[in-house]
């Protein structure tokens, strides 16, 4: 079988390859996770996996207040910049809602962490985190965003923020917006020719042979 046949075997014609590659390119216009309906039709899945996904999609874990807090936090962690949109543009809060149901070990630390944060803000600002001013929110986050210099009494907040930050990064960089931002250039049929010459030169690796 040659390369053309292999492209055919992938269900593509030579002409449609470029269409596929374009279609596979991350685009900021479409984001989101696959819907349960799509999953039902999916080949290569065991029945119980499909049923499990359906069930998870039908449940709601976070309250609207918790989701609002998650959204503010996610956008503080990954804001919009010159390169790409924010965490909420990439539907990170929706991903977090799903993943805590999928990996239930996240549930209590997330719920409890959000509550801890609200109580801190109530004591400081007499209002929950989402209702605090942007300045107040950042002052709060500064106390829990740097594990090595955080005060011991902030430890629960540090632990929570570590988890929140990691879930935000997971959700963002696995979205179309995030994959484009980070510059992952693969996942497409190609001929791997090794490290480009200019990169070999940049690192002085021209003469390294395996």
């Amino acid at each position, binding site marked *: 079988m040659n390369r053309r046949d292999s492209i055919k075997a992938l269900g593509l014609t030579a002409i449609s390859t470029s269409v596929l590659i374009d279609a596979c390119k991350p685009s900021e216009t479409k984001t989101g996770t696959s819907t349960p309906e799509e999953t039902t039709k999916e080949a290569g899945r065991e029945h119980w996996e499909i049923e499990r996904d359906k069930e998870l*999609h039908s449940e709601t874990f976070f309250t609207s207040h918790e989701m609002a807090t998650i959204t503010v936090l996610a956008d503080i962690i990954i804001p919009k910049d010159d390169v790409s949109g924010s965490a909420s543009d990439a539907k990170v809060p929706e991903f977090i809602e799903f*993943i805590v149901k999928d990996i239930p070990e996240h549930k209590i630390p997330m719920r409890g962490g959000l509550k801890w944060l609200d109580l801190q803000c109530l004591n400081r600002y007499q209002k929950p985190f989402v209702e605090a001013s942007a300045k107040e929110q950042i002052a709060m986050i500064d106390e829990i965003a740097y594990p090595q210099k955080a005060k011991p009494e902030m430890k629960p907040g540090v632990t929570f923020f570590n988890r929140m930050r990691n879930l935000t*990064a997971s959700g963002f960089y696995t979205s179309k917006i995030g994959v484009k931002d980070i510059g992952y250039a693969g996942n497409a049929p*190609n001929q791997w020719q090794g490290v480009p010459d200019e*990169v070999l030169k940049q690192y002085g690796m021209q003469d390294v042979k395996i």
Partner: protein
Amino acid sequence: MSEFQIKKSPTVYDAIVVGSGAGGGMAAYVLANAGQKVLMLEAGQYFDPKLDAHQLKWPWESPRRGAGTVRPFGDFDASYGGWELDGEPYTKKDKTEFEWFRSRMLGGRTNHWGRISLRMGPHDFKCKDGLTDDWPITYDDLKPFYDKVDRMIGIYGTVEGLENEPDGIFMKPPKPRLNELFIKKGAEKAGVKVITGRGAVLTESIKGNNDRAPCFYCGQCGRSCKVYGDFSASSCLVIPAVKTGNLTVITDAMVREVITDKDGTAKGVSYVNRRDLQEYQVNARLVILGASACESARILLNSKSPQHPAGLANSSGVVGKYLHDSTGASVSGFLPQLMDRKRYNEDGVGSVHIYSPWWLDNKKLNFPRGYHIEYGGGMGMPSYGFGSGVPVMNGMVPDRNGKMKDAGGYGASLKDDYRRFYGTGVGMAGRGTAIARADNYCEIDPDVVDKYGIPVLRFHYKWAQEEINQAKHMQETFLSIMKEMGAVVTSKIQGRETNYGLEAPGKIIHEVGTIRMGDDPKKSALNKYCQAHDCKNLFVVDAAPFVQQGDKNATWTILALSMRTAEYILAQKKKQNI
């Protein structure tokens, strides 16, 4: 009349093959192509990589973004199964550890394996240190079959002429990635040899094979390949064998036991269908087990009869004993030199581009045998867990302005850090020889059955000091390579309290040795053709016959042994010996 009855098929096949992985697949392929009527029983469901692979999917096509929640190696991994199967427990004895990975699907674990395809060497069959039993065969006995497997299935690599790392018939290898060049340089400074990897991926087409296409370098072999560009037993053996018209495959057939006649010979197999939960019995002139080392041992131990009171093929008492998995330990970190690196597609192949074969002389070491090193890293596809190291690493190296800053953070500067650190990762893992010992074993748990009523396996496995010493040596080697290449280590530094990061037995998924071969029927279950000493029409073709595994991954040897056994069966049939 009771509804509970065993459905018996009147057909008598030439052979029944239990299991559709590398061993079962190869035996069925050889026999079916020689005109034998073969019935294959697979405990899992049908799987064809062409239809079922999650190849070329993007992370957002998984609601869990590729997390390993339902599949241990990620949501796109080509394995139905895992460390735990619903309703199919296994137990452990004396507070020892063993982790058992089972894939329940056509092709078994070969759909997702790493495609690292190493031959065992002459000293792996006949040891120089006298510490373990020799195989009843030599490398030279198996070499012609390794050669045939290379030609038939396809493997890339380079001819190196190493004494105990035999060369094969290789296709051109993939070029190294950038981090692999750093590894090569660093490892050489640390005195560790690095050579081109050897993998079961088609970097060229196979003449005359129109079913399989060459690799198109997505690096996703673990998801299995829609164009059959790598080796899976499903795509390369079972599905082609079905096309001969001589192989019938029954999926969802969970085998209980091998049925024997009054004279002790095997006459068939009983199984429960996982879908309708009905009981079936099928008959054949030969029974070939390829259910995986532990599952085949389980079937034999559960096949008790007046002629075989200790279980079939077990008059020696060795079935289940000498279980051994490869040792494994690892280190990971990042290369600060690669921060802000240029982006390009470096997916390459889904097997290893480079590796280090064992390079030292044991005379000066406090452990026997050795290990090889597999390497990883680079600009991979983001998935769940992406970037979790960044808020730690950003406190370990200077920022853009050359200043140290506090680890962690948020906002624009953290977002910039995620970009800066992308593709800087580097890691290495050792895979070493564990010594086959009679007191590392699986046996039938007398108290526990699975949901089909089949008695389950109970494991007893302890690492010995030699293996712990080997893991310590791995850690020291890895740290010295990391240092020489200028990498920063981010993984936990492992010490005595964690056995130097030595993984629990079973975790490397190279378990072998439970139905060992040998010339002496008192000390082995199978002869040198993997034929049971006690039952001439019973054969085992998975990794169970291994006497002693080298540090090489088992699959290529399973394929060669199974092909050899299948050819032996054909020759014996011709002579009417079986």
